[in-house]
């Protein structure tokens, strides 16, 4: 598989209004192949979300560049869909209108929009909720809509910034299975940021472990469990071994963050 997303020497320094500089990212080099599912695992505040925002084009790198299919990323665009941790559905649009937002913006004909949104509403299991407004939905349903909204737009890569971080544990586990199921049936490149070790392993073909701030990629780990994956693998010895290894890595970083 060829590299689709190429992160080359990307670093980010934030400057406070008083002129104090904070290095959020030390130069990161990273490649993501087409249709790969990569999770970025790291302690909170390590700069992993900053990296994702730079890939999305919502933030500018201080040095380096991001290439998508060889083309430098200049700003946000429909080719990089994003699902945020916070609930970002448009509260004045119902589920269906939210999913159609990007399609409408692109000027897709009405009937095609409808077809696509119906398709993705079914995929995320929201049939019967098309006319509901975001405030009438649970957190899990809102994030399902957000995933459908991002996927309906058919981006080249799906960026996910701790999308299940605000959900309760049971819902989160179900959402992981749902997303993985969608990924298994419709191949898509996914870059998924999380601080949850189970989530990082269960979802990914490859886990990139971030160091404490200033962030950099410390280790990369291939996850070779076959697809489709069943939630029972989470209790398998192989999974446990990976988890133990990653727990050690993350623990060291979390402690490093703490002492800063």
């Amino acid at each position, binding site marked *: 598989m060829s590299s689709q997303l190429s992160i080359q020497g990307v670093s980010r320094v934030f400057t406070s209004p008083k002129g104090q500089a904070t290095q959020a990212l030390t130069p990161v080099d990273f490649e993501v192949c087409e249709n790969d599912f990569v999770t970025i695992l790291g302690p909170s505040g390590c700069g992993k979300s900053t990296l994702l925002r730079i890939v999305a084009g919502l933030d500018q790198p201080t040095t380096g560049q991001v290439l998508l299919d060889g083309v430098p990323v200049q700003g946000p*665009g429909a080719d990089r869909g994003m699902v945020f941790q916070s609930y970002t559905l*448009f509260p*004045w649009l119902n589920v269906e209108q939210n999913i159609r*937002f990007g399609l409408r*913006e692109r000027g897709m004909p009405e009937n095609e929009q409808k077809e696509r949104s119906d398709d993705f509403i079914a995929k995320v299991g929201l049939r019967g909720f098309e006319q509901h407004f975001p*405030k009438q939905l649970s957190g899990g349903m809102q994030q399902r809509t957000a995933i459908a909204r991002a996927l309906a737009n058919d981006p080249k890569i799906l960026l996910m910034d701790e999308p299940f971080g605000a959900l309760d544990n049971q819902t989160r586990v179900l959402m992981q299975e749902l997303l993985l199921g969608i990924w298994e049936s419709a191949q898509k490149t996914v870059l998924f940021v999380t601080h949850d070790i189970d989530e990082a392993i269960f979802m990914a073909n490859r886990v990139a472990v971030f160091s404490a701030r200033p962030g950099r990629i410390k280790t990369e780990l291939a996850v070779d469990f076959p697809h489709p994956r069943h939630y029972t693998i989470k209790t398998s010895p192989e999974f446990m071994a990976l988890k133990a290894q990653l727990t050690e890595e993350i623990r060291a970083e979390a402690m490093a963050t703490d002492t800063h």
Partner: protein
Amino acid sequence: MVQEAILLFTEFNFSHDIAMTIWRVLAGFILASLIAVPLGIAMGAHKGVEAFLEPFVSFCRYLPASAFIPLLILWAGIGELQKVLVIFIGSVFQIVLMVAVCVGAARRDLVEAAYTLGAAPSGIVKRVLIPGAAPEIAEILRLVLGWAWTYVIVAELIGSSSGIGHMITDSQALLNTGQIIFGIIVIGLIGLVSDFAFKALNRRLFAWSSL
């Protein structure tokens, strides 16, 4: 007072005064809204426009509309235009600034989400900033409509031949306190009704925001 009230309607054509006042308020208020809302949105959406207009609008906001009445009489006469302009001046700058603040306070994450869905800057304004701010803009208009009512009476107290304010000045000359009090009550009642209507309309139009 009840007798005075009946007299007002039967003998002095008070309903005409009421209609005139309502007409003036609406004309001035709608004119101000038509100009101020788009301007406020432009200021809230574009930092450049805001930096350019803000000092001017902030300055004008503190100019009391009633202080313009003598000037407006000189420039626009004592006709309808003068009354409408008083209300216009009293409302327009308030609306611009409040709308600008509310549009500027749009949720950043929604704007970012729209960008990642491929929205262009014009799409952000049309499909994120405006719909997101719409319920609050409607509330601002409701508030300012209330203020417009106070301006119109002041405008009618001076150099006017019709309207509720004019009736009140006339009654003062005749020492008819009953009519004055009734006039004030009528203003309050109209304000109350328009406020209720506005509120109901906002709830209907923006059902999503009160879910």
